């Protein structure tokens, strides 16, 4: 019997497909963001506010993942931008292959922003690279302020934390300063924004963040 050393990532096939997607997005100057949160934290609401704030001529598309139903795609389609639902049929995360398939015949040269809403789950989506430029984690104040400590993988990998439902702060024991401190302990470089999608607060700061990242993606393609 022999023991053969094997240096290979378990998800190397997913990583390979994600690298392909990333190269395609870069070629077209597309900013792709992977939105991750637990169920009900407000990913879809944030996308509604985002699409509502964008001009009709913006080159934006959305992929939205769920285990079942196309409710989210229907909620988002009314803004007039291309939206496609990925129904995973039980799988608790999106993977690069699902994104690749869902892109289908969309003309990537017609896009410069692709928003991917992952399946509501703070665990599994952290493992699967989708070829995105950045992961954005959404945490609502109706959850615990210790979530960053409980789910270190996603809070370490995300570049932006959106604290949502701040309109509920008077009614819940959530400690904003503690949540920020916990997130920074996991990830000193993480950016943090406070928003309320329901009360339409802080959306402008999110849109500014988004514009900054879009500009960066466009600059990168011009400099190629």
């Amino acid at each position, binding site marked *: *019997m*022999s*023991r*053969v*050393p*094997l*240096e*290979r*990532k*378990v*998800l*190397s*096939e*997913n990583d390979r497909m994600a690298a392909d997607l990333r190269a395609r997005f870069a070629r077209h100057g597309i900013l792709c963001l992977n939105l991750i949160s637990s169920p009900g934290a407000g990913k879809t609401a944030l996308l509604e506010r985002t699409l509502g704030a964008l001009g009709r001529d913006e080159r934006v598309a959305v992929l939205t993942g769920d285990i079942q139903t196309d409710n989210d795609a229907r909620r988002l389609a009314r803004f007039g931008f291309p939206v496609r639902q990925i129904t995973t049929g*039980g*799988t*608790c*995360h999106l*993977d690069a292959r699902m994104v690749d398939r869902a892109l289908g015949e969309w003309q990537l040269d017609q896009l410069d922003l692709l928003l991917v809403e992952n399946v509501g*789950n703070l*665990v*599994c989506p*952290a*493992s699967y690279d989708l070829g995105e430029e950045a992961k954005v984690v959404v945490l609502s104040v109706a959850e615990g302020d210790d979530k960053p*400590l409980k*789910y*270190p*993988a*996603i809070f*370490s*990998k995300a570049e932006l934390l959106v604290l949502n439902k701040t309109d509920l702060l008077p009614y819940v024991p959530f400690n904003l300063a503690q949540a920020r401190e916990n997130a920074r*302990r*996991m990830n*000193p470089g993480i950016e943090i924004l406070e928003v309320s999608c329901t009360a339409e607060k802080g959306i402008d700061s999110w849109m500014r963040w988004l514009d900054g990242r879009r500009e960066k993606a466009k600059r990168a393609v011009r400099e190629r």
Partner: protein
Amino acid sequence: MKRAAVAMHELSIAKSVLEGVRAELAQRPGARLQKVGLRVGELSGVNADALSFSFEVLVKGTDLEPVTLEIESGPRLQRCPECNNEFTVENDDLACSNCGASRTECVGGQELEFTYLELEEP
């Protein structure tokens, strides 16, 4: 509900383990697989017990049976940019264990990788 979701996750990871194993075996015709070594980092979001269970389920009744999955845990390692100290994190304390600097970077614990295959070769 949560348990089911977690097990579902490890099932998809176990499928990827199996795909990786089959890809390696395809390069070694006639080799009989005995054991698969994996390293699963603390931050990988993967539960070792659920992964072992999922792997067993997938392998059962296939040509790969019997095969053992050995999972080694990967500790969470941080590196201090001030003094280059590398240390294992305990109690979520990310401050440098040497100089006390509060901002340190993660250098280990996210792995989800193969370490070895044990084979009986012809």
